[in-house]
């Protein structure tokens, strides 16, 4: 089967790296940074107006969001606002062994702080274990929770969620 979001429902690595919302490899190593996995032109510009540092630009309604990685400080404010749940935060500087991945969460079972969870990739497959280091709920997020898990650094570009089925 072919690759790519239109064929499979999940973006290929090429699509991600090509997209203006995806940070460069260099930037990923220098500190926490937003990772916008929105690779199709759909009429939506919500993310363009929520960054407190003006690091996200959506020039026209259908444009792909552009991440200015020099302005992005990795605060994560954008994560809960994307209606497509397509914005993540990756911090490879958390420690030598571990990377932090933050993602929006709107599913029934919410993990507890400190819980050890199965960390999953873009196809929902468990690829490693993770530890929940932050569970962020705010009224302004309108029901979207931002979860942060610590995972082994090698999985930084794979892990985008957790598996709570059968638990929680």
């Amino acid at each position, binding site marked *: 089967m072919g690759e790519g979001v239109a064929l499979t429902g999940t973006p290929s690595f090429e699509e991600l790296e090509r997209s203006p919302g995806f940070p460069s490899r260099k930037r990923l190593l220098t500190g926490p940074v937003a990772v916008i996995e929105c690779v199709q032109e759909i009429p939506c510009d919500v993310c363009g107006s929520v960054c407190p540092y003006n690091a996200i630009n959506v020039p026209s309604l259908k444009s792909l969001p552009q991440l200015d990685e020099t302005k992005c400080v990795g605060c994560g404010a954008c994560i809960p606002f994307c209606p497509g749940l397509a914005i993540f935060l990756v911090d490879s500087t958390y420690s030598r062994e571990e990377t932090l991945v933050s993602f929006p969460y709107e599913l029934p079972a919410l993990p507890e702080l400190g819980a050890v969870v199965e960390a999953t990739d873009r196809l929902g497959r468990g690829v490693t274990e993770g530890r929940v280091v932050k569970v962020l709920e705010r009224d302004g997020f*309108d029901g979207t929770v931002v979860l942060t898990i610590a995972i082994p650094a090698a999985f930084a570009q794979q892990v985008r969620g957790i598996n709570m089925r059968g638990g929680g």
Partner: protein
Amino acid sequence: MLTTDVAVIGSGVSGLLAAIEASKAGARVQLIDENARPGGQLFKQIHKFFGSRRHYAGIRGFDIGTRLLEAARDNGVEIMLNSSVFGVFGKEIGIMTGEGHVRWLKAEAIILCCGASEKVILFPGWTLPGVMGAGAAQTLINVHRVLPGTRFLMVGSGNVGLVVAYQLLQAGADVVAIVEALPRVGGWGVHASKLLRCGVPILVSHTIKEALGRGHVEAATITALDTKYRPVPGSERDFEVDVICLAVGLKPNLELPLMAGCETMVLEDLGGRVPVHDANMETTQEGIYVAGDCAGIEEASTAMESGRLAGTAAAEKLGYLSPEEAYDVKEEIRGVLDALREGPFGVERRRAKQLLTQRARTLRAHSNGGTPKWVKA
């Protein structure tokens, strides 16, 4: 006989916006809906909407519904609920109220915002209890908080199928798979990606072959399709499910436009048969407008804009707005509609809408302005 300036039939997204816009211009507006509550499909949409700020992007559908209702009330729009419009006869509207009384409403302009219905596909076992429309399941889980089963198969990966599949997960159900007959995902990638992250497989080039069960759905057999959409023998797979949701497209509700004598044309990119309308959302019947999904299946954002356009045009026709005032508003809306119809998912709809407006011009040029045969004496 009741009278009003502008009658808006249907209080979903487009009807509310049309009513607000016409009312703001000074027209007397009567909004009519057959349901007990206004808002159309808004109140079962629990996801955050897309678009721009003007379209309430980032806000959940049911919250948008609340805001629009407030705006309608603030602008003096009168709403008749539990009132089913059974006929449009010229400019006279026949209404059956919830108590069973018949009332007549004469309007100077009518805006038909009747929305859409789900399409179906037929397969052995499709009549078993447990086979239902995706929108029907969505109403149950989000409005009535009832799950009709625990293991779901979703047929169709357009935005409705994808959005409802995710909402089934949020309601605590399992979605065993989404099957899509096309060789690609029908809806937006981000909707699909969040499902895949939950481990829900989207099987393109697959469709449902049969629903199995005695008295109720107990399993579904799916089959792969070849490049000509024919089932591939031997590719069948069974899934144990108790609900099969059909998300195979929407089509405009045409009963009232047809009865009113509006011309239609078939445009698959807009859901099938669609009422012909011009750049003011006016149909081939003078003073009768259409807006929202009734005018072609699109999005909530386009429904808002087409509702505003129809409301503005109706107010202009009745003299509540000068041509100059109306022109600026309408041109701005048309610009926004163009922007919403860009990108890989929008261009075909834009082309289809152009065909509609071209046809409206052609028909107007050749018409003799006749009225339908059944105008009430």
